[in-house]
Structure formats: C-alpha cells, structure tokens
C-alpha cells in the first residue's frame, strides 16, 4: 500500500513537471487528484500499520519518515485547498516523492515494542510536531517560489517563472500563513513534548540534542514573526528565513539522531 502511495506521488510529480513546462490546466488538476489519492492511500496504509502495532507507527526512521510525509501531504492539501497556489504542488510532489523514496529504500529495522511510545501526550506531541513541521516546510516551498519570482522581477528579466508563478504579495502571504500555522502547531507540539517528558522521565527538559535544536528552530520562527510585525521583515528576507528555518527542522529531524544522539534517537534508527 505504501508502494502504491509512492507510485501516486511519483506520477503526480511527473504531472507537475509537465504542467510546469506546458501549463495545461487539466494536467494540473489531474496532478492534484493524484496527490490527493496518494495521501488517502498513504493514510490508509498508516492506519493499517498502526492498528497492527497498537499505536502510532513512529518507532524507527522509516516509519517516522513515512509519517512525516503523510503529515506533509495532508498539510499540502489543506494549503492547496485554501490558496490554490498551483506551483506549490510541484514542491510538495518533490518532497513527498523524495521522502517516500527514502522510506522505500532505507532498511526497515526491527521494531521493539516500547510502552513509553504511547499515551495521549505522546500522540499529541507527534501529531502537532509533524503537522507543524509540514506547514513550515510548505512555508519554505512558498518562500522558494517567492525567491524565484523575485529574482526575475528584480533583475528586470521576467523569464520562465514570471508567467507561471503568482504575484510576490501572494507568495509572501501564503508563506506567512504557513509560518503562523506551523509555528502555532510547533509551539503546542513542544509543550506537549515537555509534558510527556515530565511524565516519562520526570523532568520537562533534559538538554537532549533534539530538544535543543527544536527550540532553536522554534526561536528562528519566533524571531521571524516578531521581525515581520515590528520591523517589516517581509518578502525576500522572510523567504530566506523560511528556508533557513526549514533546514534546521530537517537537521533536527534527521541529522541530530544520526550525528549527535539523545533520547529521541531510537525512533529514527
């Protein structure tokens, strides 16, 4: 079933690439349907897996990646439905296909049943952090589109992307909306994480690397939102920050476990 979702993501990626070049609206619509179908199949696959395991399937790296991709896909559909930012689908299809490719090729390590990976706070923590990261990823996508469009306009040579992308204002708006949403979710994700940590390890904060980097990413976005409100950090600067922020998130998600260790480690092995 996961393979099928992967296939749907891949075909929709092909559709989006075709749409990027030839701008045929039916192809775009088909690509959205394909991604939607992919997300639904993916969701069903994870529900089945979760039911078999008796909990959220986020016990190893492959499962976590798969869950992250699903959260990203779901969040993308939400943003797409709300803003109809066509080219964001291309970004989403690339991320989804790439993540699912990792899910397909990485070894699915043996899962040791672990009772601490259960409970209300744990589920909330996972759900909020994953969807929050997904929204911030989409903010990064909109930010990249902004930079592409801005580059052409600033250089006075409206080129390939000029017709294909919407206005700068709109791209900035979508990016900002994603930041606010993602920040909000991430904030509660971290809080539930603290509560959960208190329940399991008896303390809210334990200088775990992942905790530190998550807080770092959270601070980047907090500063960005603040600067936008009070110093007019919008447009290009904001777009670059979304990319920096998302890079930190990706590192927090993958790099910390691979290079640094900590008590989040086991879920991403």
């Amino acid at each position, binding site marked *: 079933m996961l393979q099928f979702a992967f296939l749907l993501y891949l075909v929709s990626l092909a559709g989006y690439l075709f749409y990027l070049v030839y701008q045929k609206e039916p192809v775009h619509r088909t690509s959205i349907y394909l991604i939607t179908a992919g997300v639904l199949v993916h969701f069903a696959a994870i529900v089945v897996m979760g039911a078999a395991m008796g909990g959220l399937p986020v016990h190893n790296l492959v499962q976590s990646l798969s869950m992250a991709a699903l959260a990203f896909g779901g969040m993308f559909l939400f943003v797409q439905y709300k803003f109809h930012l066509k080219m964001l689908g291309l970004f989403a299809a690339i991320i989804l296909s790439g993540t699912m490719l990792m899910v397909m090729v990485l070894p699915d390590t043996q899962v040791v049943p672990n009772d601490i990976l259960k409970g209300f706070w744990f589920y909330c923590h996972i759900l909020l952090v994953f969807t929050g990261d997904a929204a911030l990823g989409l903010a990064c996508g909109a930010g990249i589109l902004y930079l592409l469009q801005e580059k052409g*306009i600033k250089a006075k040579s409206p080129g390939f992307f000029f017709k294909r*992308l919407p206005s700068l204002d*709109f791209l900035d708006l979508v990016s900002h909306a994603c930041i606010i949403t993602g920040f909000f979710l991430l904030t509660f994700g971290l809080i539930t994480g603290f509560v959960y940590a208190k329940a399991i390890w008896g303390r809210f904060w334990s200088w775990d690397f992942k905790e530190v980097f998550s807080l770092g990413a959270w601070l980047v976005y907090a500063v960005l939102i603040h600067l936008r409100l009070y110093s007019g950090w919008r447009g290009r600067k904001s777009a670059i920050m979304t990319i920096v922020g998302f890079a930190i998130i990706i590192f927090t998600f993958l790099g910390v476990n691979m290079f640094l260790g900590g008590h989040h480690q086991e879920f991403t092995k």
Partner: protein
Amino acid sequence: MPHIILIGVNHKTAPVELREKLSFSREETLAALKELKQHPDIKEVLIFSTCNRTEILYVSGSDSSVDDVAAFISAQKHIDVSEFASALYVLHRDAAVRHIFRVASSLDSMMVGEPQILGQVKQAYRTAVEAGASGVLLNRMMHKAFSIAKQVRKETGIGDNAVSISYAAVELANKIFSDLSAKSVLLLGAGEMAELAVEHLMSHNVKQVLVANRTFENAVTLAEKFRGQAMGFEERESALADVDIIISSTGATQYVITADQVKKAMKKRQYRTLFFIDIAVPRDIDPKINTLSNAYVYDIDDLKTIVASNIQQREQETVKAERFVAQAVVKFRKWLDSLAIVPTIKAINDKMTAIVEMECDKTLAHLDHLSEQDRAAIRRMTRAIASRAIHDPILFLRNTGTHRDDSLYLNVTRQLFNLDMPDEQ
C-alpha cells in the same frame, strides 16, 4: 451556390482619416444592414466597424453585387468611390472566411493578440442578428470564428504577453501585487504613456490615484480625468509612505525621487512593496532604489526590452494560430460544400439505405425458413418504403424556388436527418 464576399478597408490599407470617414456607428450599422438586406442579391450581411477597420461581410448570389455595395458605402458616407477604391479589398469564398477568422482571432489587428477585438466582432454579429440580416451561413461562420478565436487564445500564447509599454508595466504590477484594488497609484508629471499606464491600472480598479505636477493646475486637471486627487509636487516624498505604485514622467533633469527618500519611506511603510515605473528621459527615479529590498524600479528601457522579447514570442505563437485558422477554414469549406442540394439528397439516400439494409439483415437472420426469392422480395419492399418515405422531402429540396433561401432549408434538412460531419456537432 451562395457566395461569401467580404469587402472593406483596414489599418493596413487606409490611413486613419479615411477610416474615420468610412466608419459606421451602431445606429448607422443597423440602418445600413436593413437597407443592404433589401438588395436582391444579398441574402445575409454583417457590418464590422471599429477604429481600425470597416468591413462588410455578406452572402450573395453573384459577384456583381460588389460594385453595388461599394456604391452603397459611398452613398451612406457621402464619399466618392474613387476616394476609397484603392484602399478597398474584396475577398471571396475561402479568402473571406479566412479573413474573418483571422480578424476574430486578433491576427489581423494592429496589435496582434489584443483581446478587445473578439468582443467587437461579437457585438457586430449581435447587431446583424438584431437587424435580421444574419442567416444560416453567417451564423455558422461567426460561431466558428468565435470558437477559433477562443482556441487561439487558449492554446497559443498570442495574448499572453504585453506588447506595449503601458501594458508591460501593468503586467509587472500584477506580478508584484496580488490585489491592485487595494493599491494606490501616484502619477508624477504627465505624458501620454504615463497616463495610459494609469488608465490601464484604473481598469484594474486601483484604490486611489494621486497626481502631482510642478504646475498644480495641471495636477488638478489630470486628477479630474482619473477621478483622483491632486497634490503638490513637494508632497511627493511624504506620499511615498502611503502609495504603492509610482509612475513618473516629468521633464526634470535630475532624479525627482532619490534612494535616501525611499529608504526613509520604506521604514515608515514597514517595507511594504513599492513599485516605480519611470517613463521619463532623462530618468526621474534613482536606479539605485532597485537595490533596496521590496522596491522595484523599471525604467523605459527595461520596459522596452520586455516588450521587444514579448513581441518576438508573439510572432512565434502567431504561426501556430495561423495553422488553427487554416484548419478551421478547411472545415468550414467542407460544411459549405455539403450544404448543396445534390450532396444533401445523396446523404439522405445513403442514410436511409444503410438503415434499411441493417434492419433487413437483422430481421432476415432469424427467418431461416424463407426462400431466397422471398428474402429478395422483402429487401425490395423495404427499400421501396424507404425511398417513398423520403420522396417528398427530396422533391421539396429539388424544387428550388427563386425566392427561397436554399441554405436555410438545406441546413434544416441536414439537422433533421442528422447528416452533419460528426466533428462539426
């Protein structure tokens, strides 16, 4: 056999003074259509008149009517035929069809790809319908023209790119701001191109137009024209904090807006985007402003470069559009040919024979006990029924009275018997 003829003048053959003299207002068009319809040789007629062309498209029984129509124009417009004869073009049959398809698709426009022409053609057709001057052929031809124009617009990039300075500026504004109706425009100075740009922006319902001019009276006059507000030229710096698009076209020899001014204004406006369109030579807006974040400056040369590359692209797309038109002309020709009496009668016969044969085959397949002779008799009988059934309609079609519009009856017949080519449905 009906004969489609188009005669007219356009921007390529006639200077504007002549085109003005030959143009028809809507009321004049209505009256002229009614009068032309009285002509014994003219069955259907349409007059298409814009500032760039006056054309009369009509269906006639003979070629001789061309002189009559030219004389009619001369009488209507009080202008001697000799004055416009050299500018007049007369197109027959496919050439006429092709011409009207090209006009509707904006391939014959002064600015190829400009979108208004289709609306104007539709209006001309509506007027013809209103005057009762349009019949089967023109109806079909004009609907074909509309659909080919839509196809060209949709499937070629012909209308995609702005090919005038002021349009290019508006297009840029649309890619910078998402909603122009929430944006304010400041016009510094005056000038045709700058005013055109403001007008284009106004058609996007900009929130407000401010006008500043060294001579305050001029500002007031222009502001009235744009239903905007006049302000003193010295107020321009403070206005930077509030407006979003600045179009500048003054005769100043130095920059009228400097980078320092914009830097300060940017802080005040929380770095909301500013877009400068500098149409003046020498330039009014310091080009360094373009390096500030969220500020964009386009001068006349930048806009010209964009327009030049757009025109080049448009020419490539034109080739594609011409192909669509050529295909449509061939299709229309096929339909027109089928709209003759002999092919229609043949088509009815073929259809009936096919039905009779099919039904006979079906029925006789279950009647094994019949002898070969009986089968032949049954087939003969069914064929006779069919030919008797269509005898009267065919007789009616053959009996072409002089006062009857053949194409009308033929068209009805083809529809009744569903004889048209499938791709024309």
